């Protein structure tokens, strides 16, 4: 069995160079970077080197980089940290409907703290309309958070336009770039974002390290209080090894991104072109043009996502799905529902996120393995039976026999 990994949005394999860069801080240079004695020097230098490496990847000033433990932490620091620091100007925040749960879940806390949240709708491709942002802005709006690209459908937002609108009105703009960094070149100065998130694990670095870019001079309230690490913006002893690994991964990403992107583009296009010739009733989701390279998202009708993932896993293929049964929430992906896709179709989602090491052989193998799996699962599916009989597969007949209401 050929293991084929198509789940890079969840985690990327760590580069050997990054592992090497981490090694000394696991077993030799164990000092605390905040220490004044000599044991603290190498770890402290490693952090500053990584800060420079990460800053260069996104064309930022090193002092604008705040190291955190994950993209989720960075998103929390951005939203709550900026909201609390600027609440004297107003308590209205705008996000998009397809943000990562690490943004959406925070809004509950923010509402409890007296903030009001407006959620921008997206179009059928998952794009926010800049005009809608203009209309949603109020005199008391202080912060807008719209992700750079969606992790589930690959759609890239018109971030520059959104940031420009915010800048005109003196509103802070944060963007979660976790899905975008490592796939497309990022220049935060050009984007015009005040804050920008991404994690090491999306750029072939280790888990446990991420950053929040914060435009110099921007006030923020720390979420984690204690020592004066990260200039008081994020207390706690740094995860030195992971940060060193992130720095090295960022350095390598900066050098090789054009090649990686070329490969991702080519392989992704192959999937878009060849999949419909192998399997009928595939609905591709996300924007047809403004999308991340190597992100192929679709709904394969009448086949449930988790069943598909388990079957693919049996053939050695790792992928992802927005199906409720792959999540603990038991609800279909809010991203797919926001595109206007119905619940039953959204349950049929399959997400392939390719990486720099994927090859044509991986694509060939996947294209060979998928059709029999889909056929097998469709042969079990009552929705497919309805479709073959010419009936509406998605018409649930409440009142006929037994019917489960919403959980």
């Amino acid at each position, binding site marked *: 069995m050929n293991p084929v990994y198509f789940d890079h949005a969840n985690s990327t394999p760590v580069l050997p160079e990054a592992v090497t860069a981490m090694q000394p801080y696991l077993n030799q240079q164990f000092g605390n970077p905040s220490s004044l004695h000599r044991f603290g020097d190498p770890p402290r230098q490693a952090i500053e080197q990584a800060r420079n490496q990460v800053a260069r990847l996104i064309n930022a000033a090193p002092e604008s980089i705040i190291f955190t433990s994950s993209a989720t932490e960075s998103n929390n620091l951005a939203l709550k940290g900026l909201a609390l620091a600027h609440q004297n100007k107003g308590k209205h925040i705008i996000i998009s409907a397809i943000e990562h749960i690490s943004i959406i879940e925070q809004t509950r806390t923010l509402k409890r703290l007296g903030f009001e949240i407006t959620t921008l709708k997206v179009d059928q491709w998952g794009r926010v309309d800049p005009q809608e942002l203009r209309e949603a802005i109020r005199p008391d709006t202080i912060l807008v958070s719209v992700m750079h690209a969606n992790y589930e459908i690959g759609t890239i937002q018109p971030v520059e336009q959104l940031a420009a609108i915010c800048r005109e009105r003196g509103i802070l703009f944060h963007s979660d770039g976790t899905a975008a960094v490592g796939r497309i070149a990022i220049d935060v100065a050009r984007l015009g974002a005040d804050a920008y998130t991404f994690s090491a694990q999306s750029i072939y670095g280790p888990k446990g390290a991420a950053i929040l870019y914060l435009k110099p001079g921007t006030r923020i309230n720390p979420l984690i209080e204690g020592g004066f690490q990260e200039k008081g913006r994020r207390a706690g002893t740094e995860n030195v090894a992971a940060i060193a690994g992130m720095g090295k991964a960022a350095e390598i990403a900066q050098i090789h991104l054009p090649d990686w992107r070329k490969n991702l583009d080519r392989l992704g296009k192959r999937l878009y072109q060849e999949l419909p010739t192998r399997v009928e009733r595939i609905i591709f989701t996300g924007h047809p043009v403004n999308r991340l390279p190597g992100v192929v998202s679709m709904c394969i009708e*009448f*086949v*449930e*996502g*988790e*069943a598909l993932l*388990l079957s693919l896993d*049996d053939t050695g293929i790792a992928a992802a799905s927005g*199906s*409720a*049964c*792959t999540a*603990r929430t*038991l*609800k*279909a992906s809010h991203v797919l529902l926001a595109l206007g896709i119905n*619940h*039953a179709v*959204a*349950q049929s989602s399959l997400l392939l996120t390719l990486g720099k090491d994927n090859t044509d052989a991986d694509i060939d193998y996947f294209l060979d393995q998928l059709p029999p799996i889909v056929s097998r699962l469709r*042969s*079990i*599916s*009552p*929705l*497919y*039976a309805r479709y073959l009989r010419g009936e509406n597969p998605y018409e*649930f*007949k409440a*009142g*006929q*026999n*037994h*019917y*489960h209401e*919403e*959980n």
Partner: protein
Amino acid sequence: MYSEKVMEHFRNPRNVGEIENADGVGEVGNPVCGDMMTFYIKVENDIITDVKFKTFGCGAAIAVSSMVSEMAKGKTIEEALKITNEQVAKELGGLPPNKMHCSNLGADALHAAIQDYLQRRQQSATGCRCPYCDRPLTEGETVCQPCQTKINFCPHCGKPLPRNTTVCPECGGKIDK
């Protein structure tokens, strides 16, 4: 995440399919979670002689359907009605907690098929059928559930009437508008 037994039933589900002219059909669906199961049963002398199913759902939902179909076959109606979702999960070596409610609907689907069978049996005893979709009607049923049509009954013989009729096709009695 799943027990070996769940995965084995998921990979090789037993009794997949539909039964033509089934004696009972039960459908359980959850539009939020997305799992949907349709069970078909054949009954002879009060014993379930055949069970088939079709399921749209996750690994657990497919394994549950397969296990229920095996558990029900050969049982009397009374015995099959005693199968619970908890027993099914136990037979499968357990299910993850978040799958217990959402995907473990197999016993419900089987029971729905049995109820359909019992309803049909009762209806065939009374002999009344919906004049629009021909489904057997239970006593006192005034709205046909599948076609959602309100049924009018002949005031003379009590049989269901076709729409806009002025004469009962059963007894020839005149129907006032």
